[in-house]
């Protein structure tokens, strides 16, 4: 989760891996594998062999995903503070739910959860609508589509941190581009600048604009690839039947694009549900928690305040949110795989 914990996780993982290698080495030397393998009935070998092949993968996943996750769950039941590791890293049944009980009544946590869901809903849906629109327009471009695609992908080439800095400057009250433009156009007084990143709801809107600007291209590219792969015969048949553009779009393009749409939405939802970088740079969840998201809250709680127990409990909420979205979207994806 965080560098210090990661260090401890990795040292834990290292110890386990080392022990595992040692044990396997001993087993390898002691056990006559060829003899054992010959003991397995011939008809069961075909079942057991593939399972043996995936054992290393399962072990690695256990070490790099499940062990840290399990550790984080464990930490969330303790009041762990890194500066008082010995004193605070203990599990007590009587106080194990304290972090979660606090979260239940923690207005900031509730707000960060709401903000994350709102941010997710608005950005992903807007990106989808814009991406769909752009993909349909680009699919009809007959000349220079390659150049357009390249231009479209420029925002994706920037690191999110840089995008954060760029938009933080755009919306800066004193020297920002937006306020300067509005002042020049006579829409704003010089001595009455608008603090976009401070006010409600413009702070959240500014974050959404930055995220949308950066991520519309990925949505567009996926949907464009989907659109270009659709069979022409259906459109030709529809034209023969007299269907116009809107009817073709509604009854052919949209249903056939559904798997692509769901994949794009899944990728983006998972990405947005762990929103951190742009938010960290532009507002860091502030002011007054107005733009707080789950991960900025967890990050500050852990990195700045050393409260790893509480931060792990908050992180669990983020993980659950991510899992729920993934489950929902994958179910929709499975449903959409209808053979026409």
């Amino acid at each position, binding site marked *: 989760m965080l*560098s*210090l914990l990661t*260090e*401890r996780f990795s040292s834990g993982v290292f110890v386990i891996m080392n022990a595992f290698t040692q044990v396997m080495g001993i087993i390898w030397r002691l056990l006559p594998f060829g003899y054992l393998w010959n003991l397995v009935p011939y008809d069961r070998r075909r079942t057991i062999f593939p399972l043996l092949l995936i054992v290393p993968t399962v072990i690695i996943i256990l070490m790099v995903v499940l062990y840290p996750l399990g550790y984080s769950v464990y930490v969330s039941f303790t*009041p762990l*503070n*890194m*500066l*008082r*590791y010995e*004193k*605070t890293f203990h599990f007590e049944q009587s106080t194990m739910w304290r972090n979660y009980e*606090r979260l239940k009544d923690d207005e*900031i946590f509730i707000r960060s959860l709401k903000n994350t869901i709102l941010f997710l809903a608005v950005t992903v849906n807007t990106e989808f609508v814009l991406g769909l629109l752009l993909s349909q327009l680009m699919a009809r471009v007959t000349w220079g589509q390659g150049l357009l695609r390249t231009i479209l992908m420029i925002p994706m080439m920037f690191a999110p941190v840089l995008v954060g800095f760029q938009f933080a400057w755009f919306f*800066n*009250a*004193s020297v920002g581009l937006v306020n300067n433009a509005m002042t020049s156009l006579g829409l704003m007084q*010089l*001595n009455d*600048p*608008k*603090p976009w*990143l*401070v006010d409600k709801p413009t702070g959240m809107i500014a974050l959404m604009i930055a995220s949308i600007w950066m991520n519309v291209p990925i949505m567009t590219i996926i949907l464009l690839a989907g659109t270009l792969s659709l069979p022409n015969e259906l459109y030709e048949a529809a034209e023969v039947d007299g269907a116009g553009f809107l009817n073709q779009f509604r009854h052919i393009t949209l249903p056939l694009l559904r798997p692509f749409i769901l994949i794009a939405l899944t990728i983006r939802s998972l990405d947005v549900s762990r929103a951190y970088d742009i938010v960290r740079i532009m*507002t*860091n*969840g*502030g*002011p*007054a*928690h*107005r733009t707080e998201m789950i991960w900025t809250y967890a990050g*500050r709680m852990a*990195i*700045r*305040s*050393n*409260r790893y*127990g*509480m931060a792990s409990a908050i992180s669990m909420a983020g993980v659950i949110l991510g899992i729920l979205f993934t489950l929902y979207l994958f179910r929709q994806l499975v449903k959409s795989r209808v053979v026409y």
Partner: protein
Amino acid sequence: MRKKIGLLLAVLLICSVIVGVPGKQSTVRAQDDGPQYAGLDKDLSGITIRFAGIGGQPYEAMYDSFKVFEEATGAKVEIVFLGDGFEIDRYLKQNYAAGTVDFDVAWNHTSFTAQYVDFVEDMRQYFTEEELAPFSPAILDAATIDGKLTLIPRHADISAMHYRTDLFGNADYQAQFESEYGYPLAPPTTIAEMYDMAEFFTNVTKDTDSPVYGTQFAGKEEALAGRFYELLVANGGNYFNEDWEPIFDNEAGVATAQWMRDLYENGYIPPDTPNNIWPEVAQNFCDGKVAFYLEWYGWYSYFQDPNSCAVAGKFGLTRGPVGTAGDVHTGWAGAHAFSIPKDAENKEAAAQLIKFLTSERVAYEESQLGLLAVRGDVWGRLIAEAGASEDPLAVPRLELAQQQIAEDFFTPPLFADWISFTDLWFPTLQSIMLGDVSVEEGLAQAVEETTGLMEDLGYYD
């Protein structure tokens, strides 16, 4: 010919013995009446001293002097980490907590030192009373926790009231202010006067070509919590009582929070204050957008540079204001410093390097950059030399700084969780300023949350 050459060599050898071999000694010995180095009296050949310090333009100039130390002692100084205050704090905490200390000399700060107290050496083991004598006793006291001197100070900082002389000296403004408020316009000496003057300057310049905000302060993170703290103390309050119970929801806390809220609500401070931190507020003053405010001395040379700042030559400095407590001036201050980690490999050598870096000469050279010295011997020299300066503020500025460090200097509450506490508190203070909650509700909420934090950390066990 060979004889002549031999004679010449012999003469040169004798001369060099008499004059002294140019090299180690001559580079380390300053002019006899000048400031002197320290920590160069031991041979440290073959030892590498690893250094984790604060980075940034004003702080790094000192590290050029490493080569003097290396030449004189034979040691090698290896910088393993440089970062800004919060980065180096994070680096140190992670290494201390994980037991992976890879440095022998560590940055420290009076505001942060309580966090590191279990991980650093008592510096009195390495410094004699005589060696400690030149350092500010107030700072050494502030850095002594449970009888342990956790650091050796490098330089200090405290806020002085920076005010625009062109605005305060404007005869029309003076007349108008006196008629409206009933007392003369002069740099504010009380927190109440600060409010009046902030209101006045914002309103009176509103429709001019160069409108200003009355005052300002950094509006987030520890910067906001610290500024609140010094105003709270000046108003007779404090964050905690002796039992570490939060008490800032009392009358002084309400008055201080209300003061900040009123300034923001009425537009007497910039509207993006909650997103501003040190560089932004300094830039506002530099650009001439603010009439007066409390600011660290470290920005002085920047403000006085006409190529970078509109206020160059047009501002003055005065002591921080008093609050309702009457005789307590604002004086939230801190000192950058050095420590030796308990897990350091070369503690004696590290102590030698710290003696060198905090020596009279290095401190003197560093103070030439505008940083405030923590050694009495350096102050005397600086003030004497400033008399010859063309800058009319040179002497008053130094005298004021010396007075503030001697009389007004106070640190934040010295507990390991100051940063955790400020992180918890500052967003609520922002909520109060922005009007998301009432002053009383916000303070009650913050006190409740702080109690929870302190409970978790075992302060009431």
